[in-house]
């Protein structure tokens, strides 16, 4: 009986773990291998330890690479600035509107990613009333937002805002209100109570939110494709072009690998600095 019980978790786990390993972990190996191939689509690809693929690709495409991190960073910061107060409002001032507000936050997800990005193309086009308005208050130099970096950053921010709001909301919601009460008693002003009590307690949410926003944003290409101009391409556009248009698989694989490596470094540094247990859901699992 004890023997069978010990097997149960592994049996339950097996299909999922196997699927993930075969179709997530193993492909990474293949991508690494492809990145060291040489050849073209016509002549065939051979594995030749061609490390120069990395060097060549990085020199050729360093601009979009850097730009991707810049745009993703900017969008993450803006999303944090917009999203935190929103999450706060929902958690503490939501009352009976809480569910409706949460619905509103998730609602954009119910329209296809592409369709809502293209909607921004309409909203931000040179002729639109929105742009004219922004131009009149001086926020749109040249009367022209589409095909600039601002449009791309705005698109990324919009598309990933729910990823920022929801984790922050979740962690704010879990805060025991008695702690805040105590804080207000101790610190006399509600602002100090916020900074000393609420903010630190919501830190896991902030961390999760920033990571969940930054990581996919860095590899995004849809926003740059529709909203950006010639100078606003991100590394995602390059990788997509190389894989699907030019079919230069080794270079594309090399770039994907570097992208993933850089992101993982950023994440590990961030997590090490800020702590990870709450992210991995460890606490709950101890039940």
């Amino acid at each position, binding site marked *: 009986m004890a023997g069978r019980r010990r097997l149960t978790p592994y049996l339950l786990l097996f299909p999922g773990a196997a699927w993930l390993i075969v179709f997530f972990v193993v492909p990474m190996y293949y991508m690494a291998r492809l990145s060291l191939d040489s050849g073209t689509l016509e002549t065939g690809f051979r594995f030749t330890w061609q490390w120069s693929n990395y060097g060549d690709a990085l020199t050729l495409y360093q601009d979009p690479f850097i730009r991707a991190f810049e745009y993703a960073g900017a969008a993450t910061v803006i999303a944090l600035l917009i999203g935190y107060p929103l999450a706060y409002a929902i958690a503490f001032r939501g009352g009976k509107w809480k569910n409706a507000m949460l619905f509103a936050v998730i609602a954009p997800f119910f329209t296809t990613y592409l369709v809502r990005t293209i909607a921004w193309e309409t909203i931000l086009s040179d002729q639109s009333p929105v742009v004219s308005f922004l131009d009149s208050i001086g926020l749109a130099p040249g009367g022209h937002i589409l095909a600039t970096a601002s449009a791309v950053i705005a698109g990324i921010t919009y598309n990933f805002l729910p990823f920022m709001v929801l984790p922050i909301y979740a962690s704010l919601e879990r805060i025991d209100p008695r702690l805040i009460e105590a804080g207000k008693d101790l610190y006399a002003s509600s602002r100090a109570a916020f900074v000393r009590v609420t903010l630190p307690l919501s830190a896991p949410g902030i961390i999760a939110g920033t990571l969940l926003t930054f990581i996919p944003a860095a590899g995004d*290409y849809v926003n740059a494709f529709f909203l950006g101009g010639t100078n606003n391409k991100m590394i995602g556009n390059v990788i997509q072009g190389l894989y699907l248009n030019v079919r230069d698989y080794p270079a594309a694989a090399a770039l994907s690998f570097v992208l993933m490596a850089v992101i993982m470094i950023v994440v590990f540094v961030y997590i090490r600095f800020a702590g990870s247990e709450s992210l991995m859901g460890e606490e709950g699992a101890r039940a």
Partner: protein
Amino acid sequence: MEATTAPAPYVRRESLLRRAWNWLREHAINIYAGFAIAYLLIPIAVIILFSFNDPAGKYNFTWVAFTLDHWKSVFSISELNSALLTSLRLALFATVIATAIGTLMAIALVRHRFFGRRTANFLIVVPMATPEIVMGASLLSFFLILGTPTLGFSTLLIAHIMFCISFVVVVVRSRLIGFDRSLEEAAQDLGANAFQTFRLVTLPLIMPGILAAALLAFALSVDDFVVSNFNSGTTVTFPLYIFGAAQRGIPVEVNAVATILFVGTLIAMGFTVLQQRRAERLAAVRPPQEAP
């Protein structure tokens, strides 16, 4: 204590200002939230609005006139229909399989302690945190080098199941964590074996979580663009159709279809919430307290 009285009108005016200011400070954050939510909903409004547009040419970017024509012909474009059907079929299969696999994983992770649990946890989280382009590109590399299966529906299905599993696990797990074991224990006290307990007590109670996970998986699958773009071969899903059509003018019918999907998902979500409320009420069943 002596009450000092200032001339009445003077006091009232000052406190009015003060009150207004206080009201603003109190509600500033709500007002802000209102703007933020409006910001989130504007593109949706634009999408729905432009489904009623009657553009002169191929491009649906400027408002011309109101018409219901495109709603009447919403299913008249055969490529759009077949793309939509492909997406729905794909999502259905992916959801069923991913939800089943993911639920099993969640149960294992929450209910059991075993060697490798932390690794398994990690394995779940990493796909959620990987940029889609890396996932899509690596799967493509995998299929290309292996040479099989041919890029198409099967590769799409594999990919979709892969990225849905993690999300299913997370949702079901959070549901399982908050689960009151005492009901299960009660069932076992009454003579049910493990399987019966699971089927008759556990499963119905976590069903809202499973449904929510399934809905999430379905939405993720229908909406997926990046991973599909890399692994679809010549198969066209709904987002891929839009991407192709974006080059030459997206038909207004696409907006109509997007609106239908939106409303449909909204309804499904509402349904899940109702289910959840119902399950909570069931779980809260307790025998009436007897006086000691």
